[in-house]
């Protein structure tokens, strides 16, 4: 039954932007030229619908995500009911997580959440209900049914006043749910993919909490432990009492993460923390690429393609903003996940 979706995913794969395509897009003179170049890509149909030749970032982002969601709907149609439920939790859940993350940050600073800035996705929390939220307590009440650990995290947040706690806890709930879906349906490859992703997210949060310095391990370790994965199980014993540099060096004990360890170590020593996310996302990107090579006939191919397209959308948005800001193409290349 999944054949239709796999074939469609293969068709999508052909249209994925390559490293050369990104270079060409990054080299575009301005945002207008970039839009013109995008007409010749898989995004041509939505680009035609843009109101102006150089739309606002919000409009452009919405259009790209609408295209992505259309692809999701097309691919979702052809998979089994069980797998559809997994895709919904995993793929759409990730976008919902973005919405919640944005809402938390806005609500903490007493600012209004607008529909304009929220992705039109609903797994458990609808965008319209997020817009109605007036304070953090209301948001926690709204979230607690779908993200049960948020209430406990809220208590800790009030003690430490660090929003990472809330974001990390919500993300852990998301992964728990996806994991449940995977184990319920016995999805082996998806399980491995999630394990990889959870490991990288564990590392991201571990670096984040370690860099905070004044945070006690007992405050963040219970949260980190919820991101159990192969990577985290090997590194958790060495997380207490070491600095972030040592932690990153420890990663090299795992063979496949040796180069990641070196890259992260160099970024941390240069205090280039912004690129940590890019490096971690690039590792996942590489894993996804491996999946589509190794498993061309498995339904995990559909999931991998969806994740790759989402990364592609992010890359296009990054290039678009760089053109708006007037950054040189050489400056933007390190920020692309390729």
């Amino acid at each position, binding site marked *: 039954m999944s054949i239709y979706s796999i074939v469609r995913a293969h068709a999508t794969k052909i249209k994925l932007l390559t490293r050369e395509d990104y270079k060409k897009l990054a080299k575009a003179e301005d945002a207008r030229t970039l839009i013109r170049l995008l007409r010749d890509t898989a995004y041509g149909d939505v680009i035609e619908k843009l109101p102006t030749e150089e739309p606002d*970032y919000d409009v452009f*982002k919405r259009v790209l995500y609408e295209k992505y969601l259309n692809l999701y709907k097309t691919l979702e149609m052809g998979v089994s009911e069980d797998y559809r439920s997994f895709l919904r939790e995993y793929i759409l859940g990730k976008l919902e997580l973005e919405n919640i993350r*944005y809402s938390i*940050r*806005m609500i*903490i*600073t007493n*600012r209004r959440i607008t529909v304009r*800035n929220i992705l039109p996705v609903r797994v458990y929390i609808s965008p319209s209900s997020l817009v109605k939220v007036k304070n953090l307590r209301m948001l926690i009440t709204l979230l607690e049914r779908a993200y049960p650990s948020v209430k406990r995290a809220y208590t800790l947040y009030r003690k430490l*006043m*660090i*929003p*990472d706690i809330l*974001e990390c806890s919500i993300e852990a709930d998301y992964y728990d749910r996806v994991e449940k879906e995977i184990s319920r349906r016995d999805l082996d490859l998806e399980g491995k993919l999630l394990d990889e992703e959870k490991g990288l997210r564990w590392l991201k949060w571990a*670096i*984040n909490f370690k*860099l*905070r310095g004044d945070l006690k391990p007992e405050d963040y370790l219970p949260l980190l432990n919820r991101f159990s994965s192969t990577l985290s199980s090997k590194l958790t014993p060495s997380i207490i009492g070491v600095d972030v540099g040592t932690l990153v060096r420890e990663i090299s004990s795992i063979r496949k993460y040796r180069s990641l360890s070196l890259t992260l170590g160099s970024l941390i020593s240069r*205090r280039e*923390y*912004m*690129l*940590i*996310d*890019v490096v971690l996302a690039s590792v996942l990107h590489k894993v996804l690429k491996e999946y589509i090579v190794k498993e061309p006939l498995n339904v995990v191919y559909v999931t991998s393609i969806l994740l790759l397209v989402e990364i592609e959308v992010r890359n296009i*948005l*990054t290039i678009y*903003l*760089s053109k708006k*800001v007037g*950054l040189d193409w050489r*400056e*933007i290349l390190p*920020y692309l996940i390729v």
Partner: protein
Amino acid sequence: MSRVLRSTISSGALLELRRQLELANRGKNVLEMKRDQLVKEVYGLISEVSKRKELEKKLTTLYSKIRKAYVFKGPDSIKSCMGLSKPPEFRILYKSFLGVRIPEVKLTSSYDVEQIPDTGLRELAREVGDALIELVLLGAKEATIEHLSEELMYVNRIVNALERKLLPQLRERIRYISIRLQEKALEEFVRIKRTRDKIQKVKKEK
């Protein structure tokens, strides 16, 4: 002062002028000392302000980093994260230095970025905050230099006026009055002598 310079030729006026000269000399010395102190202070501050170029370079680098962060994280993320930072607070006090009112900026609460959940943005915000605080403190030093320089110019003008105009005028007037008084005393002496001669002549004729 000009009243004194146009004063009558008398010993009283001479005494008054000498008193004025002494006062002006003493004033000049005090002002010269103040000028030296101001120069010393300004020079001290100038060496600190010379860090401005370094700071401007740092700000340019930070601006480039901010642009990259904006591009990579997106405006929504930047807006939502930056709202979580608390801007620094300053208290501006004025203190008197050699009679000059100079501003003194005190950082009452530093830039709080701990609430920013994104590591990259948090560190960037911290760097920007530190640079801005440095810039504000540098601005206060520049304002101090400006105030001190104005005072220095004023003091210089007065010292010059004393040195080149008032003191020479006073000295000249004192010299003139002294000569006139000497002449007067001589005239008086001659007149007394003549009167004495006349009286003696009259006495002899009797």
